């Protein structure tokens, strides 16, 4: 097997090329035909140039949001699967996603209505919800003994998810008719963010999260074999686990607050990538982030074009494509 540096270079080049193709093709695909010549025609005022507005206001923010959300969820999926030593773990497993959803539901239902630096109240409330959920789950997992108990973390996360779901249903029950409709649609996930402001607000959080995760691959390789084995090899398990939990949760919270809970990316993408590059986290983590971004851009392109009357919520497309594909992979092996 070639040395890790070569494989890393090959992997990064391959998946970056894939993402580059998606980033270029994404804004060119849509329900209407636009002329690229007109899009970049500086002689037409931007306010009069519908093609340019479709390109820069409708499509480009969407594609960038898809890239950011896809990369965040896929990377978070890799980390949660290693941290919890469970192939079924997803960004939703620890309740972070449900906490974010609850925050959004509360903001919609009780008409919390303000904006900070162009970011509306719903994404802000949603991010606050994810941080709250992380805090609760973390406190529960570290309460019993020194260090994090993976099993308690997992059980606490699953329980918190169920508990948050109950609160979401209760909030929806209290909601007005039109608000209920909006909450249900929010839960389907959508990337039509409408401007660059929400993306720019989520970007720093995702970058911080990625910086935290970037230090982890070696530790994750060992932790996924078992905490004791990792400790024996000189890994500071507690520190690594804390960093992994915080980084993956921040990435998830930012992604969900930007686009709603887009399912399946965090589960399917890491497994697909492992089939190609093996299980070394130095490869899996960056490759998953890149492939997650490309995959969600592609799913959103399908969501935008496949339905003749309007658009499908992207969360429906990722699950409809990802679910059967994943099952096929399972059976094939």
């Amino acid at each position, binding site marked *: 097997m070639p040395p890790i540096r070569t494989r890393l270079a090959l992997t990064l080049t391959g998946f970056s090329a894939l993402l580059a193709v998606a980033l270029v093709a994404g804004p060119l695909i849509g329900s209407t035909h636009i002329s690229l010549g007109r899009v970049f025609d500086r002689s037409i005022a931007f306010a009069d140039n519908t093609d340019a507005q479709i390109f820069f206001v409708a499509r480009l923010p969407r594609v960038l949001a898809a890239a950011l959300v896809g990369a965040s969820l896929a990377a978070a999926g890799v980390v949660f699967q290693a941290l919890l030593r469970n192939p079924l773990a997803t960004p939703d497993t620890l309740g972070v996603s449900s906490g974010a959803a609850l925050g959004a539901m509360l903001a919609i239902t009780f008409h919390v209505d303000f904006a900070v630096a162009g970011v509306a109240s719903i994404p802000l409330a949603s991010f606050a919800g994810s941080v709250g959920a992380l805090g609760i789950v973390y406190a529960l997992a570290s309460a019993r003994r020194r260090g994090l108990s993976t099993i308690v973390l997992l059980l606490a996360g699953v329980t918190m998810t169920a508990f948050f779901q109950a609160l979401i249903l209760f909030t929806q029950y209290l909601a007005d008719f039109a608000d209920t409709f909006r909450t249900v649609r929010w839960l389907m996930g959508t990337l039509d963010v409408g401007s660059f402001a929400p993306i720019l607000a989520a970007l720093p959080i995702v970058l911080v999260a990625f910086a935290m995760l970037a230090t982890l691959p070696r530790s994750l390789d060992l932790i996924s074999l078992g905490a004791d084995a990792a400790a024996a090899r000189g890994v500071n398990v507690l520190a690594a686990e804390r960093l992994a939990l915080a980084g993956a949760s921040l990435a998830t919270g930012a992604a969900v607050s930007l686009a709603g809970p887009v399912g399946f990316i965090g589960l399917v993408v890491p497994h697909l990538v492992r089939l190609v590059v093996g299980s070394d986290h130095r490869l899996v983590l960056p490759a998953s982030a890149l492939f997650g971004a490309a995959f969600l851009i592609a799913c959103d392109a399908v969501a935008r074009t496949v339905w003749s*009357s*309007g658009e499908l919520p992207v969360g429906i497309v990722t699950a409809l494509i990802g679910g059967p594909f994943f099952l096929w992979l399972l059976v094939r092996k």
Partner: protein
Amino acid sequence: MKYVLAILLLTAAAMGRPQTPARPQRIVSLIPAVTEMIYAMGDGSRVAAVSNFDHFPADVDRLPRVGGLLDPSVERILAIKPDLVIVYATQKELIERLDRAGIPYFSYQHRALADIMTTIRAVGARIGSAARGDAVAAEMDRTLAGIRAKTANLPHPATLLVFERDPGSLRNVYASGGYGFLHDMLEIAGGRNVFAGMKQQAVQASTEMLLTSKPDVIVELRYGDSLKNADIARELRAWDALASIPAVRTHRVSVLTGDEFVVPGPRVVEATLKLARVIHPDVVR
């Protein structure tokens, strides 16, 4: 002959719904639109209870509430001892239970604007106010025809009728498709619905769809919470992000408030008039 009659009567008894008295005195209306219809006929004094969503006329505030479209409380309805319950046709479970409890009900379903007048006549007939129901419906037909006559020969600007979106941004925009009473009201008011080709009541319009539909006029409907002028100004500014839309450039975006836009009852006439004033401000006053 006797046998035939007996069989007929028995069959009728087995099949027939509980009989409504000719003039029910304790009406429970679970649909705000029908509550308004009954009040418009001058029979509000016979309404004994209303839904959680009833706000008009103000007189309904004194009445007990018995749940909503999705969660009617059968127990509270029974406690009112109604002699007629007005339900929507989709409330299948409630209808079954009313049947079992032997309580008469009136069930209906709305699609287009014309159905509202049909329902008013039917409700009038059912509660023993057929003449007044006919009069209310005929007056509505006359007024709507008057608005249509004023706008018929004017150019119909491409109009986007938004009834829901996230506050402060253009996310999750829902607009009227080419079907339903909002679409019909828009046409009578002299607008051409940009989503007329989509035969559904609600269209979720993405940013791209908003840009390509190129409306000359945008009307946003708000209901529930009343908006302050500052809020309305802020909501209008959200459209500036899509400056290539003709309506945005020519400042023909307006916000209309009032629940008459979402209650398909007698006040749809006022709602249509408000729409016409916004779309043809010079002609309709």
